[in-house]
């Protein structure tokens, strides 16, 4: 550690820290525009000037390395005057349009101008104007406001891995642009809005909708992918206006995928806001009581083994637990949370988790991706892989992939093969990448759903497992054997054992007529067209998608922003979301619907409050009692092992599970913004 003295306060910082970091460690606030802790240092805004003892002039603290015994002064007359001068220069060409600027109220320049701005301008010449750029359907530009901090350039180059933005020309003509007028092709482009310290890059979908101080802010968890990105839902007047990421270094750092951020308008479209019952082939809106009674009547006399439930991808653990308890009470073991027909090793918790945790990526030194396109399945995780790839330097982090991705992964990945036979080659040591894994200290395997949703998934899994054990992916102190989920609800459902019990039917069997009454809890991606006409379908969910159209009874539930819920991410981290707004119309929180129905069928579930339900959750699986912690290491309760006959490899190549990143679930399919993105990027995504 290096000891430096900041304004008389001695602090110890790691060697190689910058003066700015030392000042922050001493609790001093340093104004900055271009410096961002997750990006490289540019040092071009000059706002972070401080005085260093024996230095002839103020230094930019963001790029000034500390030395032992260095004395830094952050609040001297010289510093204040220097910062005021910098601010005056920045404001020369910055328009005074704060009243009509979307960044107003959350603008770094506005805030810092309070501290360092002068009340009047001495500038009498013409201000410069810069043409706005078209960066696609998500990011709105007002380039005259740009102060050329180049955070966006560094973000797109370093974090997103799509170097499309640049600072072109020089001097007064310098401007941020793609130069060739094209839409940004990143799934993380929304983060440009967050990193921009001024109002040059703002959100196009929510432009001019509300002021930042008008929002009611609620902490929540993103359900668009299985990463469990920590988000803040910002609502005004009972309407979710926008979603921004929260910082959580162990999950999403401070990034959020575009689908998680911009699907919000989908929460207002095609909503199910009242119960419906199909009478003579036609759906009729009915009061709650009638819907529940109608359903109870239909269930009357149906034996438990003819009832089944399939859970979708966006469900909270509470509703899953309630539904499972209800099904058990009704005598049914026909439960499935895998509407995509995926296969997991459910004998132990480590069999279906991203075991190394997301932070494990930062330590891995070789990676084999099997049947996954992380860029589409979890963009933020992909950024983490890229960060590791960049940090490791040339050749420091070899990545191999089986199953060619349809997009550039943003890091160099060697395509080792197209299908599972490549695993055989790796096991036999015929493929040189086997040695790469073997020689690595912390090798990692990411197994994705392109492999797990195939018929030969058990064999692929077994081969990967064997390879993992042979190459040191799983050792005493390192478990780099990772499953990358695509559904936010999946791990929670697996933890609850939302799976077929003894002789229970799987999702595909239930869909193909295995049951007489089928309860779909937000399961929209099952092949509804295959459900026989005589199967009675109960759809409980929040969007009128394909499954609701097929349903005989619709029970309107709440979307993820409208209910307090527990979600378990792909790494097994249990996280809580809070309710930001109320569900529309007569729609109710899902577990309450199930609880209410249980009373109608005289199997009253033993919980009346959310707290009691959460106690029940923890009783079913103790991991639910440990929210927020990395619970990957806690041995899960042994779940029912699925009888898996010996399956041999299919010859067909792995096919990516996500065809269009922007349209993967009911919310994103209902979103106008996502539809626009799909139109703009769809062709590229489908390549």
């Amino acid at each position, binding site marked *: 550690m290096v000891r430096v003295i900041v304004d008389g306060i001695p602090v110890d910082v790691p060697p190689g820290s910058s003066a700015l970091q030392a000042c922050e460690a001493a609790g001093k606030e340093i104004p900055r525009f271009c410096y961002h802790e997750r990006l490289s240092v540019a040092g071009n805004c000059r706002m972070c000037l401080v005085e260093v003892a024996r230095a002839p002039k103020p230094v930019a603290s963001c790029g000034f390395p500390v030395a032992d015994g260095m004395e830094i002064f952050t609040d001297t007359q010289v510093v204040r005057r220097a910062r005021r001068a910098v601010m005056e220069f920045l404001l020369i060409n910055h328009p005074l349009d704060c009243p009509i600027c979307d960044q107003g109220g959350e603008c770094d320049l506005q805030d810092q101008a309070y501290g360092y701005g002068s009340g009047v301008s001495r500038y009498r010449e*013409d201000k*410069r*104007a*810069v*043409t706005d750029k078209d960066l696609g359907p998500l990011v709105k530009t007002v380039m005259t406001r740009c102060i050329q901090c180049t955070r966006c350039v560094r973000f797109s*180059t370093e974090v997103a891995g799509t*170097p*499309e*933005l*640049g*600072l*072109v*020309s*020089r001097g*007064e*003509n310098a401007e941020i642009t*793609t*130069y*060739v007028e094209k839409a940004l092709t990143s799934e993380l482009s929304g983060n440009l809005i967050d990193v921009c310290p001024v109002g040059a890059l703002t959100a196009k979908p929510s432009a001019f909708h509300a002021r930042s101080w008008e929002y009611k802010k609620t902490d929540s968890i993103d359900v668009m992918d299985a990463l469990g990105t920590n988000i803040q839902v910002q609502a005004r007047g009972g309407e979710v206006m926008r979603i921004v990421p929260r910082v959580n270094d162990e999950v999403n750092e401070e990034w959020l995928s575009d689908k998680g951020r911009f699907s919000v308008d989908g929460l207002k479209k095609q909503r199910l806001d009242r119960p419906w019952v199909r009478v003579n082939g036609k759906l009729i809106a009915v009061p709650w009581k009638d819907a529940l009674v109608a359903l109870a009547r239909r269930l009357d006399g149906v034996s438990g083994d003819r009832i089944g439930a399939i859970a979708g991808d966006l469900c909270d653990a509470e509703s899953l637990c309630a539904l499972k308890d209800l099904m058990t009470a009704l005598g049914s073991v026909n439960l499935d949370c895998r509407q995509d027909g995926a296969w997991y090793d459910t004998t132990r918790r480590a069999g279906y988790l991203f075991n190394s945790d997301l932070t494990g990526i930062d330590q891995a030194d070789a990676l084999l991706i099997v049947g996954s396109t992380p860029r589409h399945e979890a963009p933020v995780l992909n950024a983490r892989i890229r960060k590791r790839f960049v940090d490791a330097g*040339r050749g420091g982090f070899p990545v191999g992939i089986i199953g060619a991705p349809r997009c550039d992964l943003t890091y160099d990945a060697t395509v080792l093969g197209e299908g599972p036979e490549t695993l055989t080659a790796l096991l036999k040591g015929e493929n040189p990448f086997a040695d790469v894994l073997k020689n690595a200290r912390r090798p990692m395997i990411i197994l994705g759903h392109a492999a797990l949703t195939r018929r030969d998934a058990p064999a692929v899994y077994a081969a990967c497992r064997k390879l993992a054990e042979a190459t040191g992916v799983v050792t005493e102190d390192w478990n780099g054997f990772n499953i990358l989920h695509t559904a936010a609800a999946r791990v929670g459902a697996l933890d609850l054992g939302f799976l077929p019990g003894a002789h229970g039917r799987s999702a595909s069997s239930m869909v193909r007529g295995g049951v007489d009454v089928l309860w779909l809890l937000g399961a929209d991606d099952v092949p509804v067209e295959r459900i026989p006409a005589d199967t009675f379908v109960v759809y409980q969910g929040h969007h009128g998608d394909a499954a609701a159209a097929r349903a005989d009874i619709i029970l309107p539930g709440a979307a993820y922003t409208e209910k307090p819920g527990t979600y378990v991410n792909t790494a097994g981290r249990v996280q809580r979301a809070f309710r930001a707004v109320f569900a529309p119309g007569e729609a109710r929180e899902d577990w309450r619907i199930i609880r209410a129905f249980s009373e109608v069928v005289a199997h009253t579930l033993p919980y009346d409050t959310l707290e009691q339900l959460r106690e029940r959750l923890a009783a079913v699986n103790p991991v639910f009692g440990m929210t927020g912690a990395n619970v990957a290491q806690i041995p899960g309760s042994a779940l029912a092992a699925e009888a898996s006959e010996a399956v041999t490899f299919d010859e067909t190549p792995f096919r990516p599970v996500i065809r269009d990143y922007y349209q993967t679930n009911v919310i994103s399919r209902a979103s106008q913004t996502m539809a626009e993105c799909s139109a703009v990027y769809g062709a590229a995504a489908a390549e």
Partner: protein
Amino acid sequence: MNPVWTPPQQPESFAFDADSEAEIKVVLGKYPAERKASAVMPLLYIAQRQMGRQTGSAWVPLPAMDEIARRLEMAPIRVYEVASFYTMYNTRPVGRYHLQVCTTTPCWLRGSDDVVSACKKATGISQFGQTSEDGLFTLTEVECLGACANAPILQVDDDFYEDMDGPSTEKLIAALRAGVRPPPGPMVDREVSAPQGGRKTLLATDSAAGPQ
């Protein structure tokens, strides 16, 4: 105020010709293979000269920048940034003769205004940055060319014409129009930056007997 920027008409494609390929080989040989992005500036210049040879307008079109990015395995935007930063790369078409007048203080004091107005008069150009109607000349205002001893300077493509004034500028442009490139250098009676009319000092050293 910035002039309204209109995108130039870009050619469909660009491919380096044999002469350029030979130059590229030499340039790339100077850098380690994994650091070949360092060759971006020489390659841009090679592309610009090739365009001058082939089309009579020495500029770097977008397809050429993309081709350079592909060869050097760098993001195209990084090439655009370099090309747009340096004024010596023309990112839009120029005339056959690129007239670059220095108007920085020494040249200005020595009469660069006359050179500018002579250029405008002789070519019919009204503003800096424009190309004459016959497509022969583009007039650009440049900053110090580093030859202040011979101010004012008019740089035509790669050549310095020094000690210019109004009439000599008009004469030069007339010659260029006729397809003749006069020898570059001072337009007055002197050798490089030596005094006008021959040597003025150290005349005595010519005699064999130095101070003994």
